[in-house]
């Protein structure tokens, strides 16, 4: 029962300080996008090093600021914070998404004001995300989610001149407020049922108290409230309009980064920060141990149904889209469905699979949306058919996009394949009805191939329209930052697809601490 040392907040502190610095510079007249963006990228990188160091990875292990013994200690029943390896992994994931979005937006069009708002809010949202990963208390968790929420509402609407973005921001805000209300109401019901908002207490309570109706109602409201953030069907309807209306680099952050707080939030609420299964006298072996809510099979079943619904609805609707951004938005929803499989199955193996899926999704989705942003920059319209002949006109960009889409489709030798494979096989390994989740996931992956392949066909096989005179396509590059960010994402997608070993092992060991057996 050790407390969390202040140095655990160092990464979040770095981000916050950098955000304040950015706002300050804006006031004194430094408004260059490259300068402010540079600060944000440097800050996320520094924070990332700190997080990786705390995970104990060579060569950064020497830099660690938190003693190894503190990691994964069971938090006290009054603690607000828990410092866990899985939380660290998620911090790293969040920071990676902020890093890619920051890098990809470095060279924003110079006539667009508001670089400070964008990069400052990006850092504040990321700070909130890091706090989500540190939470050990339900109320604190919901507050941290709210920090992320408010920053991202502003990010969606900050350009002000764009009517669609404003509408999206408004929609996002209203739905966000509703989901917050639902979550807090759910949390108060749980408090009523179990007498605490401490996540550790909540995760242990059902073992002794069982599931009173009030608790189940609370859990249902929390699933809805947090499910909004994670774009679970049927709480997904806002996502596509918001993703579509937002500036595309913001969409990249929403889809690749901030919505994952919903996934980790669900992890925390339904499993607890560090869960000692032995206290509930479960006899099971290693990775096949179920998590507590399997005492209420209805919860596992709920997550199973939500997972299948989310991936199926997302994929089917993605099939029907004519606009690139909307298609990717629906594909983002379906990816959340895959991640839910991890919670439904609830073994450490499944959590590892889901976490790796979240990790992989950062590179794929942020990369893909950055390509879409780049495409708009060179004058490609919003429709999928506007991408005709990109393979001839901008071969590098087209190949990069193709690789990212292939990864989203789960084609081998990309990280998307490995993550789905690990996730689905963890469901098969758990046996029972979970096998059907793997089957549903597999069928959905097969379905998704169609809409991704359609884009490949348009890019590489359809002849381009004759270019209008003075077309933007002939002109200039995308700007360094964006090209480098896309390039890095593609390299990561392929590299992790070919050699996922070390990262996967690290995530598995973190998930192993998350669901502890023995003790």
């Amino acid at each position, binding site marked *: 029962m050790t407390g969390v040392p202040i140095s655990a907040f160092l990464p979040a502190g770095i981000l916050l300080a950098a955000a304040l610095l950015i706002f300050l510079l804006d006031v004194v007249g430094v408004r260059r996008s490259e300068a402010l963006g540079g600060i944000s990228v440097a800050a996320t990188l520094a924070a990332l090093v700190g997080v990786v160091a705390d995970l104990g990875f060579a060569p950064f292990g020497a830099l660690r600021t938190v003693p190894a013994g503190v990691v994964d200690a069971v938090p006290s029943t009054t603690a607000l914070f828990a410092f866990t390896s899985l939380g660290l992994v998620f911090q790293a994931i969040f920071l990676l998404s902020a890093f890619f979005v920051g890098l990809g937006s470095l060279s924003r069009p110079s006539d667009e004001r508001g670089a400070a708002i964008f990069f400052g809010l990006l850092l504040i949202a990321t700070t909130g995300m890091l706090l989500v990963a540190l939470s050990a208390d339900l109320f604190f968790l919901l507050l941290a989610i709210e920090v992320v929420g408010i920053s991202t509402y502003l990010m969606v609407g900050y350009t002000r001149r764009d009517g669609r973005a404003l509408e999206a921001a408004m929609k996002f805000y209203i739905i966000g407020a509703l989901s917050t209300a639902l979550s807090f109401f759910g949390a108060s019901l749980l408090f009523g049922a179990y007498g605490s908002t401490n996540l550790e207490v909540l995760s242990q309570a059902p073992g002794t108290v069982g599931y009173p109706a009030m608790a189940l109602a609370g859990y249902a409201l929390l699933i809805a409230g947090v499910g909004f953030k994670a774009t679970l069907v049927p709480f997904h309807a806002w996502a596509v309009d918001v993703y579509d209306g937002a500036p595309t680099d913001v969409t990249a952050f929403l889809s690749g980064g901030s919505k994952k707080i919903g996934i980790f939030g669900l992890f925390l609420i339904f499993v607890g920060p560090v869960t000692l299964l032995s206290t509930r006298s479960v006899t099971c072996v290693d990775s096949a141990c179920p998590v507590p809510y399997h005492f209420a099979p209805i919860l596992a079943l709920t997550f199973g149904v939500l997972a299948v619904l989310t991936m199926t609805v997302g994929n089917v609707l993605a099939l029907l889209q004519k606009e690139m951004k909307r298609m990717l938005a629906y594909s983002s929803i379906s990816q959340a469905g895959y991640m839910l499989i991890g919670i439904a199955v609830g073994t450490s193996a499944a959590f590892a699979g889901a976490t790796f899926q979240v990790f992989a999704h950062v590179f794929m989705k942020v990369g893909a949306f950055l390509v879409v942003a780049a495409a708009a920059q060179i004058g490609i319209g919003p429709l999928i058919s506007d991408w005709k002949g990109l393979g001839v006109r901008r071969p590098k960009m087209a190949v990069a996009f193709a690789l990212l889409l292939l990864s989203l489709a789960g084609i081998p030798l990309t990280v998307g394949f490995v993550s789905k494979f690990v996730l689905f096989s963890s469901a098969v390994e758990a046996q029972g009805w979970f096998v059907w989740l793997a089957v549903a996931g597999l069928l959905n992956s*097969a379905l998704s191939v169609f809409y991704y392949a359609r884009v490949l066909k348009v890019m590489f096989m359809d002849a381009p329209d004759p270019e209008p005179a003075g077309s933007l396509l002939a002109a200039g590059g995308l700007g360094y930052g964006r090209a480098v960010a896309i390039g890095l994402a593609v390299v990561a997608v392929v590299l992790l697809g070919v050699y996922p070993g070390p990262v996967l092992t690290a995530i598995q060991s973190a998930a192993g601490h998350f669901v502890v057996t023995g003790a």
Partner: protein
Amino acid sequence: MAFPILSVTLLTLAAGAVLSFLAGRYARWVALLFSVAFLFESLYLVVQYTSWPGTGLGGVSLFSFQESYAWISLPWLHINYTVGVDGISIVLILLTAFLQLATVIYSWNEEKWPAAWFGLVLLTCLGSVGVFSALDILLFFLFWEAVLVPMFFMIGYWGGPRRRYAALKFFVYTHVASVVMLVSLLSIAFYGHSTSFDYASVYAAGLTLPQTVQIVAFLGLFFGFGVKFPIVPFHTWLPDAHVEAPTGGSVLLAGLLLKLGGYGLIRWGFLLVPHAITPHVQWVLYAVAFASIIWGSLVSLAQRDMKRLIAYSSINHMGIVLLAIAVNSTVGFTAAVLLMFAHGIVSGLLFMASGSVHHAFGTRDIATLHGITPTTPFLATMIMVGSLASLGLPALISFPAEFTALLATWDQIGYWVLIPLVMLVVTAAFYIWMMQRMLFGPPEGIPAEAHDVPWNEGAGMSVLVALTVLYGILPALLVTLIANSAVYGH
């Protein structure tokens, strides 16, 4: 540790592919260089494969040049990079090397984005070698799928007028099939509680399953591999893909991709779950094989497009391969692998010839072209050698293979062998008819600007003709390799 020849080979091809992509207009030289290197590596395999593996069921020791490294190692999931070969694999790797070299030479003057073209040729061969040497479920699947993507682009970008439709159809058919295949393999591994995905552990896991489960898994595998064969009624992607594919693509498609199906069915079907091969299952396979043989040759008779005719004759030939495999004996497997080698070389030759016909005359229509021999004597010779080899003329490569296949069939199911035998006559008929119409008689329908083949196309075909004759006279060069590896088939 022994020299890691298989990894070196795979790396050679990967490096060759990447360098081709980067080499711009020098891509063809890069491709040629790496193809020659690959050929020497394959020959090294053939020469060094002297220590015959012992007999024993599915044991690790059965494979030579084995390498194994942990790839994904979680408490509940062990996936290794395990490669190893036996005689069957080596023969097919050798085929890959020959075809790659011939294809690179044949398409030497490719004008449409040559860097990507040669890169994709090498990638396709990389995938094939990977399939022939992988000994881990997932690794096998990775390579299996890795073949699909370059071929998709070869058809879709370099192909004929209906290339998009053909490429998509090819992709969808084979992708669905490979997913079924993967699920079947994984179900054996998971339900048999295999300790890892290595061939040996999966084999051991398969043995523990009830026989019905094994049979269901085997039928799934049969479907997965069968679509690649292709078996009737899942063959319709093949004629479309072949007709639309560029010549080099057709050569690799017929020469290599179909062989992946045959190899997969032997290694990951018959040898992996031997107890699933009951007489009933065998009869299912015989029936499918007969259907493919009959359908392939009858439909060939009706074709006007030379390329389409060769495509359908492939269905017929692969039907005989399936028949020989279904016999489930050492002789059968030997015949099947030999026939796959033969068909790879001969159909490659014929597809090249039909590509050259198209270049020379602007059409491949058998009904309009007559008497091309005086205009293009070299090309006519190539067509003749190819057709005669394909219809099974003794002293050319297909004869020993088909003869052995029919012998093995006779051994098992007696007079049923008459079906393939009669169909062989039909095969002979459509090839002879084609030759009669196209090659001989007074010239007709020949454009004025028609010319004999350029040197590179001639050289590409010559390589394959030489092999047709060499292995036709000395099939023992291959048979010993294969037969010793097929011993443990049951």
